[in-house]
């Protein structure tokens, strides 16, 4: 994760920036908006050269103390979250999705993950049919640990496979043996978990055939969900330095475009349709609902160091006094696990900064996120001045014409590759 955004301070007690209008009961009478919980686990056994997520190795943290105490610390934030939401009149919503991400959540004993999940359930209650995912490295799970997770209520696991090709994995500095991936997938499925695999394409030195091999390997496992990301050489990473020194070539955008097209083709053929720019699933029931919630603008609370959260203004109705309310608030926690723990121990919010969204900013986000997903966005949701741009984008093959006629903005394959350009045209 790159440096935290710039923002204003989060109050010590974490209070949300919404005026308390109307009775709590009244708010609760309204259809509750979906609510998700993200739990960040900032530990990895080694750091991969390309990765800039907020994660630390044991040696970086000077021992495993943080890891051992982590579940306890994270649960403190769960308590705080429950209190803050309650105070804002947003307390009694069941959690529709929980997502453990990292870092490598499975660096923690499965029992610790289970304990955190239980804490979340105690605080808000898991909605019936709720989705609970954890990310995992293929070499950080065993059949037993996966079974513990499933028993604790986990429903999904997402493995960081990245590639099936040894020299590509080596460039990425991945430690796992690619032959372990099908085993891990099988164990997870045996445990009753829905499985997803993460891939990275466009690694320096990866040929189109290498990429095809990785895709075929994924399909051979029979998973129902795939995420494929174009490699980004993030500033501050080891890979960035390697590129700067000329040891690695910068990923080529044309090559990445060709690989995206190949992925979309092979995955679609195999029955996995795209439902977001970088995500494919065998039918809507296998899509990751937690991630969809991000793109739909639902509320979520991010637990853990560096985690981000978002809560929309409680009332969609423009209640008189609530008019001055921001459209929503995003905030983010301090990045370092030790500082995070210290703040929580002293009873303070671990929030490092926050950002109150103006209605215009919220609208911009709605378009930029909404366009990324298969269901797309209603043409009516666009700023009036930009609706005319839709026709041009259809003509240039970037938006689906049939969908447009039906009043929705949906990207074509080519449009997905140029999604950011499309968004620029669709926003004022």
């Amino acid at each position, binding site marked *: 994760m790159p440096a935290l955004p710039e923002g204003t301070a989060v109050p010590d007690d974490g209070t949300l920036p919404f005026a308390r209008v109307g009775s709590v009961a009244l708010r609760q009478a309204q259809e509750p908006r979906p609510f998700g919980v993200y739990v960040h686990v900032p530990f990895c056994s080694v750091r991969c050269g390309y990765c800039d997520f907020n994660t630390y190795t044991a040696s970086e943290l000077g021992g495993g103390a943080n890891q051992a105490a982590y579940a306890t610390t994270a649960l403190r934030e769960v308590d705080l979250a429950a209190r803050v939401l309650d105070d804002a009149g947003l307390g009694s919503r069941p959690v529709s999705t929980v997502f453990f991400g990292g870092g490598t959540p499975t660096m923690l004993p499965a029992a610790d993950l289970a304990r955190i999940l239980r804490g979340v359930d105690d605080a808000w209650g898991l909605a019936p049919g709720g989705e609970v995912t954890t990310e995992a490295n293929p070499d950080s799970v065993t059949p037993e640990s996966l079974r513990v997770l499933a028993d604790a209520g986990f429903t999904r696991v997402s493995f960081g496979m990245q590639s099936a090709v040894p020299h590509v994995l080596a460039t990425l500095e991945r430690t796992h043996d690619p032959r372990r991936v099908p085993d891990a997938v099988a164990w997870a499925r045996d445990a009753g978990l829905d499985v997803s695999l993460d891939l990275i394409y466009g690694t320096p030195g990866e040929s189109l055939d290498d990429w095809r091999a990785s895709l075929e390997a994924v399909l051979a496992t029979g998973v129902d969900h795939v995420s494929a990301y174009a490699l980004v050489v993030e500033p501050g990473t080891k890979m960035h330095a390697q590129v700067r020194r000329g040891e690695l070539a910068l990923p080529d955008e044309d090559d990445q475009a060709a690989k995206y097209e190949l992925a979309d083709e092979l995955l679609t053929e195999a029955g996995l349709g795209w439902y977001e720019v970088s995500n494919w699933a065998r039918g809507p029931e296998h899509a990751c609902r937690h991630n969809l919630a991000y793109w739909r603008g639902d509320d979520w609370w991010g637990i853990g160091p560096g985690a981000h959260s978002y809560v929309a203004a409680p009332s969609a109705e423009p209640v008189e006094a609530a008019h001055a309310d921001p459209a929503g608030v995003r905030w983010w926690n301090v990045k370092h696990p030790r500082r995070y723990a210290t703040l929580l121990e002293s009873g303070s919010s671990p929030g490092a900064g926050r950002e109150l969204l103006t209605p215009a900013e919220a609208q911009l986000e709605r378009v930029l996120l909404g366009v990324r997903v298969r269901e797309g966005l209603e043409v009516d949701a666009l700023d009036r001045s930009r609706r005319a741009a839709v026709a041009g984008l259809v003509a240039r093959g970037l938006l689906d014409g049939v969908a447009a006629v039906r009043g929705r903005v949906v990207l074509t394959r080519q449009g997905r590759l140029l*999604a*950011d*350009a499309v968004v620029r045209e669709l926003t004022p």
Partner: protein
Amino acid sequence: MGQWPGLVTTDDTLPATLTERIALPIPGPALSARIEPNVTAPELIRNFCIIAHIDHGKSTLADRMLQLTGVVEPRAMRAQYLDRMDIERERGITIKSQAVRMPWQLGDQAHALNMIDTPGHVDFTYEVSRSLAACEGAVLLVDAAQGIEAQTLANLYLAMENDLEIIPVLNKIDLPAAQPEKYAEELANLVGGDPDDVLKVSGKTGAGVEALLDRIVERIPAPVGDADAPARAMIFDSVYDTYRGVVTYVRVIDGSLSPRERIVMMSTRATHELLEIGVISPDPIVTKGLGVGEVGYLITGVKDVRQSKVGDTVTNAGKPATESLGGYSEPKPMVFSGLYPVDGSDYPALRDALDKLKLNDAALNYEPETSVALGFGFRVGFLGLLHLEIVRERLEREFDLDLISTAPNVVYDVTLDDGTEVKVTNPSEFPGGKIKEVREPVVRATILAPSEFVGTVMGLCNDRRGQMDGMDYLSEDRVELRFTLPLAEIVFDFFDQLKSRTRGYASLDYEPQGDQAADLVKVDILLQGDQVDAFSAIVHREKAYDYGVMMTAKLKEIIPRQQFEVPIQAAVGARVIARETVRAMRKDVLAKCYGGDISRKRKLLEKQKEGKKRMKNIGSVEVPKDAFIAALSSDSGGGKDAKDKKK
């Protein structure tokens, strides 16, 4: 007494002359009464200017004079006091001449000194020549660490043309690298006289400046004129001031001018009432009039500077003179460039701004023009590249405009086969039909360089189609080379090249020298098959290919990939001579966009949107304005020109 507050110097201790103000020969009240501007006897007036190569320290020397004569309070002092425009202060160069009246006592006599600090840059030679016409003498200043440079010669020549008394002075003698003995000899050789006669001063420490003021009183002839004749005053500058209207600077030759009388501008016969009359010292001081030999200003309340033309003669309406004084020749624009507002809706604002600036800068010429790529704008004539750059900067700064200036070009005289003659100031208007002859302006360039660089300089001038006219050794190790060069070749990075190839040692001066026929062609640049008129250039046939390759490569660099392929071509007539392609962009999406990425992504989008405002559309091709501007103007060398001279 310690350090004078406000005096800009790095020295902790100042020489006695500066600190012991009490002892300075500034006339007391009784004597001062005799040098009131309306009653001063011409014998007590000395009019002089300070001339030099750029950066040799004219303005700094002027500072010390302002201080020694007590016209600027120590606490009000700042370095290059007379460089008042922001742009002058930022660049550390003088652009406009400034006249200042100062008292000075020699023996038991008070004198009034009118000093004019002049610019050193070649583009502003016309300012120098106007200042010279208001003076009887000139302080020829030479940097004692640099010696004689090209503009030293050019300005000396002008001063001699005007029959001025020359006082040779070496400056910056405080510098460790100064070689006063060597350059005193060089200077004495040049102006005639004894090396011992060459004064040595430091504008920084003030050393020798008192002696110089004495020398000015002793050597420079007092003005002569007929006090009883009808008034005749020469306008040597005219400036527009937002609050006061046009301020006209004059040098009185005969008779006198007094407030509230009616005056006539002799060339236009326009009459005005003199609302205010005064001297600059160095702030305006209202006086009861100006007599023979005085230098001062007039305010008539007119708003249009053209009513107060530089070179015109002012006389008295009641008792008019019959013969006007000889005027100045109008400065001729040498370099042209298109000026366009980045935002098309600023066109009227640009027009107003040019009109206003013109009030201050008679040398500015402009006509409306339109460009396919750039929209509505003006073709503007300038005295040189620095002039171009300064005008552009003043327009942007003082009028808050965002401008694009096209690559500078010169004016061509084209004769068609049918005998029609066309004057081309904009390359895109170069006629396409059968051409009999193209004539281009040439200059006579003087280059001074250490003798080891003779070969280098000759090589460069040869590359630029130069003809060597002669060469002289100024001293054993310093050579003056003279060339006839096409002006167009100087307009492109010539000075940069000269400086870099001579490790900064060469200096350059040039003046127009008529025109010559040449084998010139127009190279067009096409984006997606459409000509981008702003990039058309007229170049020598042998250089057309190089220009085409250079320009297409440069455009390829600056044009970001679009959603379609963009061919870039260079063509002479219908013949394509160079080609590049910007491939279509295939991917423009951030693959990952989860919780923590959203703020970042929105901000990125907002930034891109902001960036889009900084894009210029050429046909359907979007080009970042900055890059576009850079491509249009980076070869002008104008900016570097001035800065390099500053070293």
